[in-house]
């Protein structure tokens, strides 16, 4: 996307809900769902005298993320209160981190058209989520199950230069969160939330333009569309002589436009100050080292390894490593069949298409890695053709059966018997005298027609290599 003489400046604030068993400062379940207000306690209800205590695991998860995003982990950080009134904020303040966050000064390399772009991470700080309000005409209901669920807010530098880069950055963060098994990264369900800060300036200007913030965009596609809309809107406003107002906007995906939620004049003074109920979060840096030592291989490192170890093209390596589950599945298939390129193709094309169509995760789909490996082995051994394999795959998807059983039951074994093939081919030639004459007079394109006829007559079971070989021989004529 080109913006003419204009240059967008974009920064993202990503809230990642940490998959801990209990809440950030309270002992009850942090699970999604539950009956209304089931997962609450005096602490998350903000009852008088209830005090917070820090969830050790949430800190560990946050350090994991900080390390994966190349951040400095501060062994001394401070929880602060962010004060504002809202009915689903029980204490009248949110416990967050302000001037002394847990993680600072990191970066993430994202890849746009094969080229790396480094996006700076200003900070990543811990905080608790608010509850949920639903409004019904003249009354509202509040569910506090989510109140106090741990979040890590990851704030990027304004290093992002296009809507596409922004979406790619958000996807990369999501992939890392999922690799680390600390957040399921689901924008639709809100376990990951994305606020986009957008401004534009004339190319070459060093001063930043006035920014707007787009809140809670709930898919990566919408991140891209919302930012794109906002960039165009800001350019059009400035070009028509208007001034950009610093404000918070919301994105309406049905109309593909952003609209004002609140302006800066209505913005809160949050009156941050250190939470006197919580001592500073202090730990020995050896804890950080222990966590670092246990970090899994991350998507980018894995993609590089796939390129060298399996000789995969960069594109394949990047696609296969986006999801940790997919990458592990691919490696299992490749190990069984010994044919990484075929494994890559089957996983990337057939399997991922089914996953997308049925909206299933790699963990929840019916074909086991050893079954797909076996299928590829059967192709490579010549037992079935690649084409037959696709129908076997469809049957495996439907029934979860083993490929060998399906081939046997349906009689799909490839015909590699020269005698049998010669008979079929002879019949095809005999039945198509016109085409034979045309072919022989130089219309070699008709070869495909004969292959098709033979495959049809063999119900697709003819060994294609042998068919080619025999057909060529027979069509030469006497």
């Amino acid at each position: 996307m080109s913006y003419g003489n204009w240059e967008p400046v974009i920064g993202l604030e990503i809230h990642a809900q940490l998959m801990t068993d209990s809440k950030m400062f309270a002992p009850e379940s942090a699970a999604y769902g539950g009956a209304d207000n089931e997962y609450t306690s005096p602490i998350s209800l903000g009852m008088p005298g209830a005090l917070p205590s820090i969830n050790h695991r949430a800190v560990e998860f946050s350090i994991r993320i900080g390390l994966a995003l190349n951040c400095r982990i501060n062994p001394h950080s401070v929880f602060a209160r962010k004060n504002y009134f809202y009915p689903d904020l029980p204490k009248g303040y949110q416990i967050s981190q302000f001037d002394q966050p847990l993680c600072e000064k990191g970066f993430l390399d994202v890849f746009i058209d094969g080229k790396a772009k480094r996006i700076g991470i200003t900070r990543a700080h811990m905080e608790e989520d608010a509850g949920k309000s639903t409004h019904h005409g003249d009354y509202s209901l509040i569910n506090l199950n989510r109140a106090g669920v741990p979040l890590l807010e990851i704030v990027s530098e304004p290093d992002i230069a296009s809507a596409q880069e922004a979406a790619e950055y958000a996807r990369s963060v999501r992939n890392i969160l999922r690799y680390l098994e600390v957040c399921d990264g689901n924008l639709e369900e809100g376990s990951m939330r994305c606020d986009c800060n957008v401004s534009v300036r004339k190319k070459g200007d060093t001063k930043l333009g006035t920014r707007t913030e787009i809140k809670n965009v709930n898919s990566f596609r919408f991140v891209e569309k919302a930012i794109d809309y906002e960039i165009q809107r800001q350019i059009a406003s400035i070009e028509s002589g208007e001034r950009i107002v610093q404000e918070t906007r919301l994105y309406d995906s049905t109309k593909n436009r952003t609209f004002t939620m609140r302006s800066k004049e209505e913005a809160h003074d949050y009156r941050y100050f250190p939470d006197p109920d919580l001592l500073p979060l202090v730990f020995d840096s050896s804890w950080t080292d222990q966590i670092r030592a246990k970090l899994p291989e991350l998507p980018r490192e894995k993609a590089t390894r796939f390129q060298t170890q399996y000789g995969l093209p960069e594109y394949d390596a990047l696609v296969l490593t986006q999801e940790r589950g997919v990458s592990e599945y691919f490696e299992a298939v490749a190990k069984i069949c010994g044919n990484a390129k075929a494994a890559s193709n089957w996983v990337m094309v057939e399997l991922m298409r089914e996953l997308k169509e049925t909206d299933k995760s790699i963990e929840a789909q019916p074909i086991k890695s050893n079954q797909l490996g076996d299928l590829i082995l059967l192709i490579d051994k010549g037992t079935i053709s690649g084409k037959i394999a696709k129908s076997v795959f469809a049957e495996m998807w439907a029934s979860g059966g083993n490929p060998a059983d399906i081939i046997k039951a349906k009689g799909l074994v490839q015909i590699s018997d020269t005698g049998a093939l010669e008979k079929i081919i002879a019949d095809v030639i005999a039945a198509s005298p016109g085409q034979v004459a045309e072919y022989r007079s130089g219309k070699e394109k008709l070869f495909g027609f004969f292959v098709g006829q033979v495959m049809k007559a063999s119900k697709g079971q003819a060994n294609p290599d042998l068919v080619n070989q025999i057909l060529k021989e027979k069509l030469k004529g006497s």
Partner: protein
Amino acid sequence: MSIIEKNLTELCDAVQKRELKSEAITKAFLDQSTRLNPKLNAYITMNEKALEQARDVDKKIASGAKVGRLAGVPIAIKDMLCTKGIKTTAGSKILHNFIPQYSAAVVEKLEGAGAITIGKTNQDEFAMGSSTETSHYGICRNPWSTDYVPGGSSGGSAAAVSARMAPMAIGTDTGGSVRQPANFCGIVGVKPTYGRVSRYGIVAYASSLDQAGPMGHTVQDCATIMEVISGKDVRDTTSAQEAVPEWSKNLTDNLKGLKIGLPKEYFAEGVSDDVRKVVKNAIDIAKAAGAEIVDVSLPLTHLGVAVYYLVATCEASSNLARYDGVRFGYRSDFEKSPAVDVDDFYSRNRGEGFGSEVKRRIMLGTYALSSGYYDAYYKKACQVRRLLRQNFLDAFKKCDVLLSPASTTPAFKIGERIESPIEMYLNDIYTTSTNLAGLPGMSVPGGFSKDKLPIGVQIMAAHFQEQKMLNVGYAIEKSLNLTREVPNVVR
């Protein structure tokens, strides 16, 4: 000696030795409360199950089962502490209907040791006051002279113990709220080192200053209660790991080798002659008990009240945000006149639910934390607070404990200072610094004024050095022998 004139230690012994039944003890104090509460207003709520619980303890003892060291002895609890199933108001209208589903850690520990919660004592609203005149449930009166305030904010606890409506009470001390009413009512009040006692379940006023402590007739009684309520609580991350000593066993009135510092700033102008005389006498007693007296200086003392009223109001402005009428507590009559919007809903609940002193402090704190003022007020206050703490640490290099007046004058008259917040705030001049520095402090009875109003002596120690402080109090107490003095209203 009648039951209600016995102190906590004597009552505990009597129960353990089966000389007295808990039912008789509890009934005696309940009767005294029924008789005197209309006059003194020391209690907001009585525990209706107190007698039943006392009978349960008696049954347990009769069956030979093992019981805790406080078994069957009634204790009054300040209404800042949550009590499961018993209304807890913090002296405010905004909590007029709040019945907690949990007890404060302090209450759990007391009840765990067998104590009976007899009732919830009156206090300044959210502990914001020095006279128990800001309570939504009416002013509390000083048993020694009912025209006078009992002090505050734990005035109800002090009055209840002083008038023998309970042998022991728990108070909370944010800027002197245990020591000053103990001082005004002629009893012993101890504020432990910050972190000694879990704050879990105590309605928060100023989290970095609040600390619960015992208010009783003797140093021994208070030391016993300290042993029960102290110790690490995982639910309060600011509670200390420090081991809990056996203060009550280790008490001694031999002060040989102990250095007592007299901070000169605490003997400045404004200290009344009566108070000077009492404190002078206490110093002489300590000297006679073997202590060495040294002069020390706490040069930043004059900033204590200002720093306190910034730190405390800032924290309070945030701590009290949860009282919004959404989940519990007072809610305006929206049936009669519906809320215009959510801001109107808040404004009415809070506007009608909070009293004027609480509103004043919320506004002060909100202002001081606001963007543009934070550095000049809150941040500066925190810096001075660190220096104040250093003042004390420097002083404790020269002495073991500090001894001073607890306030410039004995109890003042009801209504005398309530219209003048500054004058009221200055009443806390000798007590607030201890909280800002996180130090332990106590007030022990030292005598009476010409008008027969009690006057206490304040003793402060270094962090976690409560024993030294208690010993000095013990020596003064033994020498003066005032623990059987009772106000006329008792008889």
